[in-house]
């Protein structure tokens, strides 16, 4: 039933072409007939989508960045010495080492450089560490106390503030805190050098100055109206002044056109 419809284009083609079609060209004829736009010529030209030469693909052979080990294993380093420069974390900081923001490994303690692995910490990472003595190896045995260096020296202070006796009250090693004009002690700031009054002291300032506030009378509507009126007027005045400054500034800020200098 479908056969006549399928064969219809063939029939049309054979009818259209008066000449005889050899059996080897039958398929071509069919293809021509079935294609939506049966163009007589087919041309496939593919243009390049990206540049193949010049700087377009990035300069591959730039200057070297001088990466790599700056200190060898066993070399003596002091704090701040860079041990390894790298892109990414090829090496990780181990004992007494730190990592910079460009992933460089630097020393935090004076000692001897060790390149090592620590499978208990991480199975695949490689670490750079520093030992305090020449013969030590890393990693340290597990669960052993950490080896730590004090890095400080005791100095005898010349000016030790005199201690108050226990009866006098709280004992402090610091000199007496400074006082303000009113005679109350000033608080020591967070850093220890800036002084300011305590908040409770500031709150009492009006009392000391003898400032009297008129007593609030509930239900005194006349006074309330006067106060609110004064407040509104003050606000309006403020707003007006603000508006004036804006208006005054505007002409100065006027932009020049693109043509003007």
């Amino acid at each position, binding site marked *: 039933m479908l056969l006549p419809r399928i064969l219809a284009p063939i029939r049309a083609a054979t009818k259209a072409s008066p000449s005889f079609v050899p059996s080897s060209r039958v398929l071509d004829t069919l293809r021509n007939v079935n294609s939506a736009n049966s163009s007589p010529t087919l041309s496939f030209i593919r243009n390049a989508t990206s540049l193949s030469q010049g700087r377009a693909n990035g300069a591959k052979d730039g200057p070297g960045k001088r990466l790599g080990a700056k200190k060898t294993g066993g070399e003596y380093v002091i704090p701040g010495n860079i041990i390894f420069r790298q892109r990414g974390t090829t090496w990780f900081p181990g004992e007494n080492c730190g990592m910079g923001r460009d992933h460089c490994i630097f020393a935090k303690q004076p000692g001897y450089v060790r390149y090592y692995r620590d499978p208990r910490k991480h199975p695949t990472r490689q670490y750079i560490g520093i030992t305090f003595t020449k013969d030590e190896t890393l990693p340290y045995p597990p669960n052993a106390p950490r080896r730590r260096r004090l*890095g*400080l020296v005791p100095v005898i202070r010349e000016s030790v503030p005199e201690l108050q006796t226990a009866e006098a009250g*709280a004992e402090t090693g610091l000199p007496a805190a400074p006082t303000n004009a009113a005679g109350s002690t000033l608080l020591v700031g967070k850093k220890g050098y800036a002084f300011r009054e305590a908040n409770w002291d500031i709150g009492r300032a009006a009392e000391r100055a003898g400032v009297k506030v008129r007593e609030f009378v509930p239900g005194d509507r006349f006074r309330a109206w006067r106060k609110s009126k004064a407040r509104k007027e003050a606000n309006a005045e403020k707003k007006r002044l603000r508006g004036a400054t804006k208006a005054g500034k505007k002409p100065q800020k006027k932009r020049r056109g693109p043509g003007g200098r």
Partner: protein
Amino acid sequence: MASVNPSIRTCLRCVKQTANANASLSVSGARFLSTTAPVSQEAAAQTQENPFEKWGPLDPALVDNKRDERRLIRKEGVMPIGSRRRRAALRTSAQIPFEQLPYQAFQEARKILLEDRQEKIKQIETQKLRLANLLKQDPAVSGGEEAKEVRVKSMQDHIRELIILADINDPIVKKKFEDGEGDMEKPIYRYLADKKWRQYKKLILDQRIEQFHIVPDLLPSLDPVADVDLAFGRRKINPGEFVDSCISESMPRLKVQVFDKGEKLVTVVVVDADVPVPEKDSFTTRCQFIASNIPISPTQTFIPLNRLDPKPKGSEEAAPKHIALPWLAPWAHKGAPYRRLAVFVLEQNGANALDIAALEKTKREHFNLRGFIHKQKLKPIGVTLFRTQWDENMAGVMQRAGLADQVKIEFKQKKIDPLPYKRRTERMR
């Protein structure tokens, strides 16, 4: 108190108030045509007589405003139960016991839970019987001594688990535990308390132990199984907190909650892990305190270190029963790094008492906790820590501790010599 009928309570309050009113009336008669001075005197006398009379009896389960809570805590020393929202809800609700609550679904659910409980109890009985039979059995029949032991242990574990499962779904148990009324002698409450501790406090403690390197520095490994709370006076100290030197001058008190059955003897050791040794350019440890033979149990949790060996009133010195090394106030030099002070609660082997006189010979300096634990056959069950550093009160503390010569010493950064300059080719060699 919760079971007191509200109407009765109000009645009581009325009676008390009227009694007060009467008293004031009778006194006011005497005060007729007098100056104002006696009024204050009278008020003072009244407050001295009975400070609670003004607000009547307060129920810790029902107080629902801040003022009453404060009164309850300050004057009667009782903490209110549960949240304020809960207390307010309880106050307004008719307090019907669970069995009589008029909710059908709830009652049906309770029936299911009760059935489950009965089932569990039956299982426990059969398991106990089986265990008894196994214990009677000849080891040769049950496949050797070792195999029998393993079986006995696993059966005991199973019974323990069943005991927990029998009670875990009981709403009354849940309520009692949340109200803090749980009896720690019972396994279910111990189980719930342990679970609660492990959910938050233990995690924090584990983190602190790791962060402050308590584990490799003082002990090779540590798995705390008891909840230890540290407080100086009324101030609670979270693990790792900085404590002011004048506060830590006196002994702390400990609350050690164990979650397993039975009474045990413990030793409390306080170790300073960061004592600087400038000669060697390193650190060492110092023992600040040792007290031994302190009995604790799930219900007996409080260890006030300052009241362990109360000093007799007379001049004669009684031999200390618990404290081997008295409290040494934690101190730090100016400029030195902070000190970590770890408080260890160590279980004594088989509840055997240690010899205090022998412990007194322990050296404070270079104290080796690992060796001490090994020698005395102890087992660490709980730990907490605090930190101390130089502060404004430290000089006074040091002077009182007899370290006046140390006050003057300050630690400064050591200067490290720069590496000598070498040419590149020289460095390569």
